[in-house]
């Protein structure tokens, strides 16, 4: 029996996963994205949850960096998963499900920023803080140096104009093309190219100064 066949789950008429035991969940962890996405598109909720667990941390990290808010980020992840579940049928290449999920995260995050701006004329996107700083591995100064450079980049990123920061995160975190970013932000691909370049020049300068 193939690994996938042994990891299959059954969904009853109401769409409930009736064999979603922890063991089955663990086995699904080993199944490639393409198979999970295909099963999920057929209505397999266990396969869908496995995808959500696998890519959830990346989706959450991206949404946090884009919205600047942990609470909004979790809402974004939830809404992304709802939308993904409804639209999985439209995903042409199941193997590309990760990028597809990230594109939805990008759009939803930008929607959140727009909503927030409409509700209050304040930009708290600068206030991204580490609510749960992770323990640093015990290793030489290399790690300390690397992590302090990362901290310096966070500070430099927070100082960017919002439009530039969005372009940078959608490019570097979501790996979106200029055209995809243009669609997400509702601007031209040329504007994306320009903003991204300005963001990079500013960030590179700050990092040189920091060094």
């Amino acid at each position, binding site marked *: 029996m193939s690994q996938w066949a042994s990891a299959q789950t059954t*969904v009853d*008429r*109401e*769409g*409930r996963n009736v064999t979603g035991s922890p063991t089955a969940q663990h086995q699904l962890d080993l199944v490639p994205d393409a198979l999970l996405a295909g099963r999920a598109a*057929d*209505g397999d*909720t266990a396969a*869908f*949850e496995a995808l*959500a*667990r*696998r*890519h*959830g*941390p*990346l989706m*959450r*990290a*991206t949404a*946090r*960096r884009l919205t600047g808010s942990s609470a909004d980020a*979790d809402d974004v*992840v*939830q809404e992304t*998963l*709802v939308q993904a*579940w409804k639209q999985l049928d439209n995903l042409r290449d199941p193997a590309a499900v990760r990028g597809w999920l990230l594109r939805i995260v990008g759009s939803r995050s930008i929607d959140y920023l727009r909503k927030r701006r409409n509700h209050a004329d304040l930009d708290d996107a600068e206030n991204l803080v*580490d609510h*749960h*700083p*992770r323990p640093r591995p015990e290793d030489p100064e290399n790690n300390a140096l*690397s*992590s302090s*450079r*990362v901290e310096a*980049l*966070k500070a430099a*990123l927070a100082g960017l104009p919002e439009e530039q920061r969005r372009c*940078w995160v959608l*490019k*570097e*975190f979501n790996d979106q093309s*200029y055209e995809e970013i243009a669609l997400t932000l509702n601007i031209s691909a040329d504007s994306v*190219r*320009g903003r*991204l*370049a*300005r963001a*990079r*020049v500013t*960030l*590179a*300068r700050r*990092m*040189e100064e920091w060094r």
Partner: protein
Amino acid sequence: MNTPRDTLDCGHSLAELSAYLDTGQIADPAHLDSCPECQAGLASLRNLSALGSDLLRSDVADAGSGNDDWMQSILDNLQLELRPGRSIPCSLTIRMTPCGRPRDPSRHSSVPWLTACQAQLPASADCMATSPLLAPGSAWR
């Protein structure tokens, strides 16, 4: 190494170099190999890109595992919305023969329960021609 100005003495801009890193396209690729300014600019942008990857890794680690409570909580909320399951196309109009079989099964091959029901019905090849109850093309929903 200093980060070069927006437009370099050689005439290239950092915007061009930035786009080159993403797309691999630039007007005169041969120039890049021989121009120290462009090389310095590219090196600086590549360093930044590598640091961006470090930041992403750090952010993903801070986001926690997909098996943690936060994801379980999201999935629990989602479960309410997923419970009805993927919708079967209810607006589908199935043209039936008088004996209860779809007139054109090949059109509905993507509806598994219909295919299953159909398999359990007795074959009746001539029912469409002989039944007076339904005119050809009558539809049941």
